[in-house]
């Protein structure tokens, strides 16, 4: 039975899709058969970030409506054999998602996959609540600013009360915090919240801190998950986060402001 991971945030534009793509790729690179599902029906993005937008034939809603089989809709990643993408429909809306349909698709995927990563849409409406409903683990993506932290907090409240695990009264969803777009320099001078500030409010297990990096935008534009850019700090930070998720004890990087040497200042400006 696969473990279902939801990548969620409440707020939009914080890096859910980037994280879903990177995290799913990371798990697949570690040898796990992984599927990543785009729940953002109507605003399909994951296929772009994964670089498979030109191979989309059938989508999630087709499978839910039983107009296509799962095998017809799943797109195998070209870089990694263990990785499959189930794209969202661009022509429908979130109402096309039904709880029974999502449960059936996840159940069918669960038979052959190790991990299923659900890329949640922003908001707390149907798409987002269905993306998290069946989850075992939740990665809450948060930017170091107050509105994102508050929305994440709200999402954590929903995770704790309106999921299948919460309704069954079993073990609750495991919640992880992933702080993205972090700039230690700006946090140090008080321009953004620090890791400690965020942790004080959310008090969650910190899965990783992804530094604010040009590599993320470059990777998105190139349609290649940033985790594949091993030279970039963001790519390495995602790799650390995946390893921490899998139980490795990896020290946190990118939290403290680096001291720039005189020469590097001279050259980087």
């Amino acid at each position, binding site marked *: 039975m696969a473990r279902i991971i939801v990548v969620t945030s409440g707020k939009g534009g914080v890096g859910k899709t980037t994280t879903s793509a990177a995290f799913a790729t990371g798990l697949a690179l570690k040898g796990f058969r992984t599927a990543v599902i785009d729940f953002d029906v109507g605003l399909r993005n994951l296929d772009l970030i994964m670089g498979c937008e030109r191979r989309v034939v059938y989508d999630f809603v087709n499978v839910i409506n039983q107009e296509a089989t799962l095998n017809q809709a799943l797109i195998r990643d070209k870089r990694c054999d263990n990785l499959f993408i189930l794209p969202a429909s661009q022509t429908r809306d979130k109402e096309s998602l039904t709880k029974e349909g999502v449960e059936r698709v996840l159940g069918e995927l669960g038979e052959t996959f190790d991990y299923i990563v659900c890329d949640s849409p922003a908001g707390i409406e149907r798409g987002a609540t269905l993306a998290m409903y069946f989850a075992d683990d939740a990665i809450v993506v948060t930017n170091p600013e107050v509105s994102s932290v508050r929305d994440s*907090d709200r999402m954590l409240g929903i995770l704790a009360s309106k999921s299948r695990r919460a309704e069954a009264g079993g073990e609750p969803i495991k919640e992880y915090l992933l702080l993205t777009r972090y700039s230690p320099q700006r946090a140090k001078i008080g321009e953004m919240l620090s890791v400690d500030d965020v942790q004080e409010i959310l008090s969650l297990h910190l899965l990783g801190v992804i530094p604010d990096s040009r590599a993320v935008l470059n990777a998105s534009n190139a349609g290649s998950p940033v985790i594949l850019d091993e030279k970039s700090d963001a790519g390495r930070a995602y790799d650390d986060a995946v390893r921490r998720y899998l139980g490795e004890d990896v020290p946190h990087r990118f939290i403290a402001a680096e001291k720039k040497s005189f020469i590097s200042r001279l050259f980087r400006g």
Partner: protein
Amino acid sequence: MLDPSQAYDVPFEIRAGSFNLPVLKLTSDSADAIAGLLAARVQQAPDFFRHAPVILDLHELATRDQVPDFDALLQILRGSGLTPVGVRGGNAEQNAAADAAGLALLAEGKHHESHPATESPQPTPEPIRPPRQGTKIIDQPIRSGQRVYANDGDLVVIATVSPGAELMADGNIHVYGSLRGRAMAGVKGDLDARIFCLDLQAELIAIGGHYKVSENLDGTARGRPVQIMLRDNALIIQDL
């Protein structure tokens, strides 16, 4: 089909029921004055008075020791379409007269002392305050958007309360963590309720409807154990 007479093995059951009835508060024992005003009222709203059961409140007359002529009164009321069913608040003499005229004697909590228990065979009135249902204890963080209400009791939170979260209690509220959301104690009007917390950063605090928003809370109470209570209709924050 089942014969209805066999559906029950007893001929009747006694059940409690509560009804809202109009009360005619008598301020005069003059049958003529009552008849005049009643005729005018009935004309205004004939449907309201048709077959309406009505209670006669004798409290005002009891203070003046006036005993109305119940037979004449009943005739007037029934003539107007009303169905008088009983009296309340009368003294011993009035109650005896009402009883003789075939009216029920209704008990009423407020005027209980005016008619002894022997004269009011009605069931005892509801207790004014239901018993407290005990304390509600929460040991998980209360997140933005979550609401917790301790009905008829205290609320104890052994975790942080996030901004945008809402705590409500009929009794006191205790927060053993940072209180960053809203906390409303004594929401059913208990002005003696208090709020206790280890770190006051609340968006709003309220006791029995008297509230303060964070703009009016000086940040000085941050990080210290404090209690909040109501004194002379103003919320005061005290160090513990």
